[in-house]
């Protein structure tokens, strides 16, 4: 090894040895920790001193977390923390009491402790951590030779061992995802319920009340029409005007539920329509290969609508740009305006509402709004484009369908009688030749022919399976007709 390259090599070795030394030095703390932990565990379960359990778990987790951090930094083994998310703080009942199982408490302390205890006890990661710590004084000395001879390799082996006990398992990852989904689902359900209440109120106070008024007016007309046709006519005019107002009102409500342009044209034209209606100069660039999933489309539309009206109302902007693009199946919407900036989600503008709406689709919102502007809001919605599944694949052409049928009908012949059966007859030394082609040929050609027959049959079977696999098998399933019981021309 030449001089200039020797130095980094020595440095590398030195660093590795330093890391190994740190690992071994940790044993000095770990061994006493084990000596304390084992009796604590015994006391908390056998003697009922349950209050010892949480601090014990916290202690073990601290060691495990330190080890994960070191292994991530020193080796290329990324050890994910496997812990389940901590339980949410207890929520008081309407009467201010806190419930845990069947007991009521005045303060949240006991229910919170109970939740925490259950969380630590039921998380398998707690027990895997404990096992890892218990085995530390065994594993580290066992790896000693590797640590000394090839510290890089030794560290890697140790990291893989740690990952096995400290890393996330498929189950813990799933558990994490489930709790994330549960949270976003609750948010989505909440905002949907709020939306429903708003619509109910709008209809109740608006359209419904107006229809009652129209009905009453028509009743009055009925009573008046014989005696005072002129007054009846005046009332009819009033009723017609009210029905017109009711329609206007309904139109407004419908726009809030699902804007008609969105239903008719999709996101691109709906955003263009917003841009035209806006008092600002709004330029829109859209690059979408096809229509988005309907719920995502609505979420993106309302987000853009809210951002544009925010920009005009609070930001005093004069121009804005909206950019909608996709990368893969993900959707990105960017809204920029030249307003005075300083937008803050915490100040209760519509931003947190948009965030909640997007969260239901795993979407995120990034805001950059320095005082003085400009404001840029970027929203990312993963998997917003519908996947091209069976609907988009071409269906099997007719001639290929016949080819597949012919293959299935004939492939047995070379495989079994001409191939395998002929081979078995030859092995058993039977003189029977029957219609087995290979056995009628000269001796030296018999085995090659048998093998060729088996190969040909296998290939035919393979093609019979392979050809339809590349096509959409449900040959042209008809699209379901749009069913819309509600209709607005």
């Amino acid at each position, binding site marked *: 090894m030449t001089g200039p390259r020797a130095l980094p090599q020595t440095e590398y070795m030195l660093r590795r040895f330093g890391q190994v030394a740190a690992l071994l030095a940790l044993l000095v703390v770990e061994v006493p920790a084990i000596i304390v932990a084992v009796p604590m565990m015994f006391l908390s379960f056998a003697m009922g001193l349950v209050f010892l359990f949480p601090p014990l778990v916290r202690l073990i987790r601290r060691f495990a977390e330190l080890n994960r951090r070191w292994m991530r930094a020193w080796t290329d083994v990324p050890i994910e923390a496997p812990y389940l998310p901590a339980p949410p703080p207890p929520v008081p009942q309407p009467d201010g009491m806190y419930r845990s199982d069947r007991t009521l408490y005045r303060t949240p302390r006991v229910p919170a402790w109970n939740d925490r205890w259950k969380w630590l006890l039921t998380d398998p990661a707690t027990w895997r951590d404990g096992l890892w710590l218990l085995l530390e004084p065994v594993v580290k000395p066992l790896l000693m030779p590797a640590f000394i001879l090839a510290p890089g390799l030794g560290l890697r082996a140790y990291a893989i061992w740690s990952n096995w006990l400290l890393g996330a398992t498929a189950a813990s990852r799933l558990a994490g995802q489930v709790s994330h989904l549960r949270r976003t689902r609750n948010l989505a359900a909440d905002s949907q319920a709020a939306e429903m209440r708003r619509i109910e109120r709008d209809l109740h106070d608006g359209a419904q009340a107006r229809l009652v008024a129209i009905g009453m007016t028509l009743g009055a007309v009925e009573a008046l029409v014989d005696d005072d046709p002129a007054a009846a006519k005046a009332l009819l005019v009033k009723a*017609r005007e009210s029905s017109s107002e009711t329609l206007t009102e309904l139109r407004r409500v419908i726009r809030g539920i699902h804007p008609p342009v969105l239903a008719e044209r999709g996101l691109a034209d709906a955003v263009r329509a917003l841009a035209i209606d806006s008092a600002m100069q709004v330029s829109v660039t859209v690059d979408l290969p096809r229509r988005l999933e309907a719920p995502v489309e609505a979420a993106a539309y309302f987000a853009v609508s809210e951002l544009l009206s925010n920009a005009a109302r609070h930001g005093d902007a004069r121009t804005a740009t909206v950019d909608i693009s996709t990368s893969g199946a993900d959707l990105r919407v960017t809204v920029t305006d030249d307003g005075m900036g300083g937008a803050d989600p915490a100040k209760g503008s519509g931003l947190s509402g948009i965030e909640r709406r997007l969260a239901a689709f795993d979407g995120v919102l990034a805001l950059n709004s320095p005082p003085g502007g400009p404001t840029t809001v970027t929203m990312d919605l993963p998997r917003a484009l519908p996947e091209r599944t069976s609907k988009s694949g071409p269906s099997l052409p007719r001639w290929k369908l016949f080819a597949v049928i012919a293959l299935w009908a004939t492939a047995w012949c070379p495989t079994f009688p001409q191939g395998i059966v002929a081979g078995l007859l030859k092995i058993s030394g039977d003189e029977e030749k029957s219609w087995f082609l290979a056995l009628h040929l000269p001796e030296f050609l018999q085995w090659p022919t048998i093998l060729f027959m088996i190969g040909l049959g296998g290939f035919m079977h393979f093609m019979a399976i392979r050809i339809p696999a590349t096509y959409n098998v449900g040959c042209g399933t008809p699209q379901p007709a749009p069913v819309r019981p509600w209709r607005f*021309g």
Partner: protein
Amino acid sequence: MSRVLIAEDLYLLRDGLVHLLQARGFTVVAAVESGPELLKGLLELRPDVSIVDVRLPPTFTDEGLQAALAAREQVPGLPILVLSQHVEQLYARELLADGSGAIGYLLKDRVFNATQFIDAVRRVAEGGTVMDPEVIAKLLASNARNEPLAALTPREREVLEAMAEGRSNAGISQRLYLSESAVAKHTASIFAKLGLAPSDDDNRRVLAVLTYLNSR
């Protein structure tokens, strides 16, 4: 006697329109209820005027609007009055884009006032342009910050609105209770302020105003 085609999928409304138009002396040559039927009817029958709902089967999206645009591409200036439950500036622009007039775009509620509605149908049949007051209101609202429009007097704005809806000088004078000469004076002033060439032809005048407002 004008020949009319009606495209509307709700039976009650379709039937109501047929009766209304027949009572006012129109001949209803076809009353269809879906997009493909509509396009076929428009191209084969070449009605003097057609009344078309935006949302039609089979897709219940903007089938009627697409059929109207496609027909007018093949037969420029084929008179069509589009009806909808909601009005969009976007659609108004698409309908006006070919600049050949004989187009109308109204909310369905306008059918309530039979006299005004029949008047609108006649104007479209004669090659005029009829825009719903709501379209014009939105158009003016989104142009609110533009300089030349801000320079108009309130009266001139009212005249502009009425003009954009497609009314003639006589129609404007009736609606705003002005003399026809006063209306003429206002329109001349509006055209001067917006920098448009004055025109005596009502139809061309409307298109000029709408094109001006849409170009913003």
